């Protein structure tokens, strides 16, 4: 992506829409003066239709079209909060739906294409969505002024009611059609934060998606049953990089309900009337695989290779002072190796996607996290102009990074499966849990070799040699994330530790492995957060310092790190790591995606491993738009992280992924969920995201608490590798 700065854009586009029976107000408010890219591949030829973020119905409902996918992190509610705030709408009239694929209108202002990731939904939309609401408000007021023959300045709007002192009043719906005819104000006046009624206010809004998610009516991709839809299951190579050599489908074809069986680039696709016939038939396929180009190494072998590399210096990421000279001066040298496993995302709804290819046109809908590249690849595979292809994002049952596919592998497989049987029948591509868990796209496997020197009660040298696989190499994001040939997501958090250490070195061995890898909730911080925060705790212990006080002493120029650390210490009433008999506390603080999170964990040792009783959490994400959603993301991030550091790993045996389901890829259960207390630190900084940043501090805080109980600090994750369901 070639980002460039575009000058302030006039608010130019609007269009009339009909949504159901209601007349609607379409408002498009362009942002101004932020770096972005216009040259996304799909951008030039796309058919721009619904030029809007906002639909106001005759019935006064206000529907916000959300450019970000809702998979639990809360953008439906977040975008609607921003619009409703400036529109002075009543929360009860607010609705949200996904925007269709359109890289010009609905691009993420951080990426330049439409997509959700990097905990960026609120941060990139904060001003944009407020302007949408403010512009719509000014237009509605202008119509009211004209109708009532009163000055616009005398009109007020409160909780969805437009009012004048003369007693005249109206809802939004009555004026929406006329408002449509007006020019969109270029610079609508935004509220001063002191005037906010919804943003940052406790209890002011409820999630817009809760009811549908509590009564079974929320529609996910797996629920699509358009008439004539065939369910498609694909048999894929057990090893990464394997290809079909030959196959025999005779037994599979005989299964009642099977419509067809075709070879596709990824394997062999079974098309059937429903899941069970498709699965039954797929189990009967006899396929011989060509593994000549497949990855055949197991994780044991990878560990040996990575471990050997970690004992040599990698490509330099950052250096200050001279670590080796400092080591030579003496003091206590501490060396620790941390090993991180491959992790599957395992969202509750496994991967799936739906498309109806009609020949001249195609219509796809599923939980696409990156609509722009998905849209382009579907059009390309089907040989259609992108203007003939629709892509609609719908709710997805979790992601944790899994649905943000820079490789577009699911969109491609969907389109290839459609192409293989030709136009006509709609198809729903369904992956089983085992398909999803064994398909790769894991959090990369990796090693950190840390060395530190403690002298006179101070940390005087710090070195971190990382061995890992690049997530971004070969992807459309390579240009954005690579620096000097190195993937910054492999070391983010390790090169910029918040602690002032005079001699510092961070280097990286970027290793190629034939296992597809992907970002996983908090990306590089999943391992760098653990390595840095467990190691600093180890060094502080050697230096005889308190984990909280010792950290604060090295954070003089890191006010936001220090701020959350102090806040969590106060919340937890921190008086040192040792608490009542049999229990201990650990702490960690990690910044990710410009959000700062500190956590204190209190645990004891059970018969099978650590039992985490309580987690205190302080978060600084700038202006807090929806405090309850922020708390929910911290609670969920803590549970997600705890399950993984205790139990989760995907191992490879001769290149074949071993775990296929939750019986061996153990997930946290309710009886293991600690009590959680969250404080949202007040801030006037720009808002930043919360979907990911609750994850990284939890693991090292657990490790640090275990060390305070006199147990070994876990250096190879997961902590309980043999534990199954």
């Amino acid at each position, binding site marked *: 992506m070639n980002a460039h700065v575009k000058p302030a854009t006039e608010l130019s586009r609007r269009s009339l829409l009909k949504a159901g029976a209601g007349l609607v107000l379409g408002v498009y408010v362009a942002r101004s003066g932020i770096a972005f890219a216009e040259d996304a591949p799909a951008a030039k030829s796309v058919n721009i239709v619904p030029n809007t973020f906002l639909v106001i119905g005759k019935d006064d409902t206000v529907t916000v079209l959300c450019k970000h996918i809702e998979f639990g992190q809360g953008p439906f509610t977040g975008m609607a909060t921003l619009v409703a705030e400036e529109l002075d709408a009543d929360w009860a009239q607010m609705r949200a739906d996904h925007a269709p694929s359109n890289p010009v209108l609905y691009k993420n202002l951080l990426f330049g294409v439409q997509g959700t990731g990097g905990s960026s939904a609120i941060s990139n939309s904060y001003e944009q969505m407020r302007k949408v609401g403010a512009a719509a408000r000014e237009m509605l007021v202008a119509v009211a002024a004209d109708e009532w023959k009163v000055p616009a300045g005398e009109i007020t709007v409160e909780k969805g009611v437009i009012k004048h002192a003369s007693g005249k009043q109206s809802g939004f719906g009555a004026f929406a059609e006329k408002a449509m005819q007006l020019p969109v104000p270029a610079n609508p006046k935004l509220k001063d934060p002191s005037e906010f009624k919804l943003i940052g206010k406790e209890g002011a809004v409820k999630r817009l998606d809760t009811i549908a998610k509590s009564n079974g009516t929320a529609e996910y991709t797996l629920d699509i*049953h358009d008439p004539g839809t065939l369910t498609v299951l694909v048999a894929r190579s057990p090893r990464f990089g394997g290809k079909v050599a030959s196959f025999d489908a005779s037994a599979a074809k005989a299964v009642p309900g099977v419509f067809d069986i075709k070879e596709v680039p990824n394997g062999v696709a079974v098309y059937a009337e429903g899941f069970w016939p498709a699965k039954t038939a797929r189990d009967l396929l006899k396929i011989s695989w060509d593994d000549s180009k497949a990855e055949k190494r197991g994780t044991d072998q990878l560990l040996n290779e990575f471990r050997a590399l970690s004992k040599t210096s990698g490509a330099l990421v950052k250096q200050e002072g001279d670590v080796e000279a400092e080591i030579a001066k003496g003091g206590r040298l501490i060396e620790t190796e941390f090993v991180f496993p491959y992790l599957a995302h395992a969202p509750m709804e496994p991967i799936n996607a739906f498309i109806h290819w009609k020949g001249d046109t195609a219509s796809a809908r599923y939980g696409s996290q990156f609509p722009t590249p998905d849209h382009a690849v579907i059009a390309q595979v089907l040989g259609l102009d992108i203007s003939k292809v629709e892509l609609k994002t719908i709710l997805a049952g979790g992601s944790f990074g899994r649905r943000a596919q820079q490789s577009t592998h699911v969109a491609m497989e969907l389109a290839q499966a459609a192409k293989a049987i030709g136009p006509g029948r709609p198809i729903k591509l369904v992956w089983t849990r085992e398909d999803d868990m064994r398909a790769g796209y894991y959090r990369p496997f990796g090693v950190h070799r840390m060395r530190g020197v403690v002298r006179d009660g101070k940390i005087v040298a710090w070195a971190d040699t990382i061995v890992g696989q690049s997530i971004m190499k070969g992807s459309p994001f390579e240009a954005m994330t690579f620096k000097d040939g190195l993937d910054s997501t492999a070391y983010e958090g390790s090169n910029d530790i918040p602690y002032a250490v005079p001699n510092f070195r961070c280097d990286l061995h970027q290793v190629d492995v034939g296992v597809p890898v992907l970002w996983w909730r908090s990306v590089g911080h999943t391992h760098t957060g653990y390595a840095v925060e467990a190691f600093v705790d180890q060094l502080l212990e050697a230096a005889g310092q308190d984990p909280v006080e010792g950290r604060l002493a090295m954070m003089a120029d890191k006010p936001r790190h220090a701020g959350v650390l102090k806040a969590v210490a106060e919340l937890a009433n921190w008086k040192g790591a040792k608490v009542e008999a049999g229990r201990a506390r650990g702490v960690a603080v990690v910044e990710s995606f410009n959000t700062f999170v500190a956590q204190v964990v209190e645990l004891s040792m059970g018969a099978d491993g650590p039992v985490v009783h309580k987690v205190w959490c302080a978060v600084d994400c700038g202006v807090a738009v929806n405090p309850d959603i922020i708390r929910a993301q911290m609670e969920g991030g803590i549970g997600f992280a705890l399950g993984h550091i205790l139990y989760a790993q995907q191992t490879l045996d001769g290149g074949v992924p071993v775990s296929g389901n939750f019986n061996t890829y153990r997930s946290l259960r309710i009886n293991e969920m600690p009590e959680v207390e969250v404080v949202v630190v007040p801030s006037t900084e720009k808002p930043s995201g919360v979907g990911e940043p609750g994850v990284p501090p939890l693991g090292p805080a657990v490790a640090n608490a275990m060390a305070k109980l006199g147990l070994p600090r876990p250096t190879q994750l997961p902590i309980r590798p043999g534990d199954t369901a």
Partner: protein
Amino acid sequence: MAAFTLKINGREHQIDVDPNTPLLWAIRDNVGLTGTKYGCGVAQCGACTVHLDGQTLRSCSLPVSAVGKSEVTTIEGLNSKEGGAVQKAWAALDVPQCGYCQSGQIMSATALLELNPKPSDQDIDLAMNGNLCRCATYVRIRAAIHAAAKSLEG
């Protein structure tokens, strides 16, 4: 293939399927009720939880041929006072995140309250630990079950 009559949410449905078809897929693909979800297929996650004669059941692991005359209740047919209280508590506390597991969570929570109107934390652990939530909404699930129990005290 064989013909079966399933009694779901008080209505009878005739379907013609492979007798080994799990009840889950009969409910979803043949009857067309999609609130009950697929998450693992091996009774490990609880996303497919329904009630069979009032007891929780992992519908992914019971063949349709074994259902017999039993009455199936899915999230769409949840109409007991406990079910209503659970759904209200879910809304009051904004429990769901991605929402995909929540039909199963609500079916398990409702069955718990129908059996035990005032569950302790340990009772909740026992009744709910077969329902995974990858978003880890567990703190709120627990709080919402307690809130629902309180609301049923009258």
